[in-house]
């Protein structure tokens, strides 16, 4: 297990795109994601969900403010270090699965370790274990196009977990799945969450978001409110925002 209390922390983060008129995709967002927590992000289209995911996923750097992932401030890192941090501390699950089409299930799961220089035998061993945990022990050698949507997403989840990351980022993970398969995947999320994995899920569907401990509502690049689901209480976060 990773040490420390906080998996990811955003401190007064702004992301401004300058294509003609400046667009404030994120406008002063502060958010702490504790280790082992399960957070959902909701908001209408254009509210800044993807931008937030890109920052947390170390794919991008903020215009202002700090993004801390696994104890390191992303904005201060060079490209190489940031890539390394992404590879080791972040696991991605995408709506469209994003598996490598010519690699089989084991190889897809092992891919992140390949880039960390882990040996082939060790990689395969770890990948096999994870595939077993997501219930695909009998599909190891299958190519993505030989798997169903739900199975592909399981492979993607196993891949996200292979480097034992600080946080798993899922962007509409059940957007391309039917209701039954969606439930299976979300059950798996719950299972790993209970095992200690930190989850951050972007969704526009209420019933998906409700699997989380809390829901962060985004609107126009700002946190509108944070809805705690354990006790069912809702905290208005606008007070802690650096208001404009």
């Amino acid at each position, binding site marked *: 297990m990773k040490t420390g209390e906080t998996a990811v922390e955003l401190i007064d983060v702004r992301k401004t795109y300058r294509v003609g008129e400046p667009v404030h995709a994120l406008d002063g967002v502060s958010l702490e994601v504790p280790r082992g927590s399960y957070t959902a992000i909701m908001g209408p289209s254009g509210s800044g969900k993807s931008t937030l995911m890109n920052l947390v996923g170390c794919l991008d750097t903020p215009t202002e403010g700090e993004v801390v992932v696994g104890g390191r401030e992303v904005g201060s890192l060079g490209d190489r270090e940031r890539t390394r941090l992404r590879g080791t501390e972040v696991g*991605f699950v995408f709506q469209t699965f994003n598996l490598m089409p010519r690699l089989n299930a084991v190889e897809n799961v092992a891919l992140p370790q390949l880039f960390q220089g882990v040996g082939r035998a060790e990689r395969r061993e770890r990948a096999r274990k994870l595939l077993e945990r997501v219930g695909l022990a009998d599909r190891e050698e299958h190519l993505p196009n030989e798997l169903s949507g739900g199975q592909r997403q399981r492979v993607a989840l196993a891949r996200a977990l292979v480097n034992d990351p600080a946080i798993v980022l899922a962007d509409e993970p059940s957007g391309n799945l039917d209701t039954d398969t969606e439930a299976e995947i979300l059950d798996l999320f719950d299972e790993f969450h209970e095992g200690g994995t930190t989850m951050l899920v972007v969704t526009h569907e209420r019933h998906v978001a409700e699997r989380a401990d809390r829901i962060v509502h985004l609107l126009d690049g700002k946190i509108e409110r944070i809805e705690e689901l354990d006790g069912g209480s809702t905290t208005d976060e606008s007070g802690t925002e650096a208001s404009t």
Partner: protein
Amino acid sequence: MRPLEFLRLSWRSIRGHKLRSSLTTLGVIIGVAAVIAFVTLGASLQAGIIGDISPDDQRNLYGWAAEPDAEGGPLAGAQPVFSQHDLEELSDREDVEAAYGYATIQTQAISNGDEQVPQGDGLIAAGPSYIREDDLREGRQFEMNESEAVINPAAAEQFEENVTVGDELTLTILGGQQTTVTVVGITDTSEGLSPFEGFETAPRVYVPTDPFYAEQAAGLGFGGDGGDQARYLAIVVEAESADDRAVERARESATSYLQSEQSDASDLLGDDLEVRLQTSTELLQQLQDVLDLLQNFIVGIAAISLLVGSIGIANIMLVSVTERTREIGIMKAVGAQNRDVLGLFLSEAVILGTVGAIFGTAVGLLAGYLGAWYIDLPLVYPYEYVALAIVVGVVVGILSGLYPAWRAARTDPIDALRYE
């Protein structure tokens, strides 16, 4: 990430597009095959010709007199200027081991007992040492002033009953005159023994210049004083050894005598003719030059083919980078460094180039060997060119893959993941 992993992954994607990849490598295959085929053929040709020059031949200087600007092979523009007296004088000189005339005598036929075969040329008159000891399979050299002959296997085998040492042959000289010779030796090769003869396989009978050439040339002019006045078109001057300096000394010594007032040849040389004395190697150099020119030409074509091949690889790699934008995004999202992506695409290009070079080498060797086999040359394996071809394949791969791979490496993962 380790090189082997790059290769494994790259090989995957190449196999994913078998037809496209094969077509892409075609340019490299053709270029490399052309070079290898020609180099193999050239090397075999060279071995077939140069290989025939025995170390003993290296001491021989082949001489004739011609106008200074006469061009062509041995004996081009040669005029009969050398007398028997000149040859004797040459033989007596220091630095010269022996000197004798060389002439081909026109014939009609050769008979072995009752059996007669037509033969137009192939009766060669020379000195005894023209037949070198190690060229003899059986018997001995002929002797001067004797009706003796040494024949080559092709001449021996052209009769139903093979000619052997001790047999007598009847030669019908052009003009109808007949002479009988005793076969005293058989050579071990049917190819020519010197550049004067050419190197092709043919039936040949070697006889001493005296009496054969001397008699025939007698009475043709220059005083009409019997055999002594026969003039030779071609001479062979033997140096004391095959050592370069010895050969050079012999050449200088012979040239200075032949061009001096003392020689009979000088009377006929006048201002127009010049004596040339050259070794087999020097004479073959001309052939070699033509071969080199042809080889350069083919290499030029191959270079163009390789260039086209490289552009083909670069083009396909660019297409491939665009096509796999999303895959690049995935790899970067899961932690691939820029250099990993660069390495992956580069090794793909290198594999294409190298595989092209390997196939090209195989095709080229096959073509070269078939060619060499067809024209009956010894097969020579141009190992260093095979190695070079592989290196060229790798270099072509790197050069053509560099830009596409760099494009792939700097792809922004966010854009790439959005790419449809």
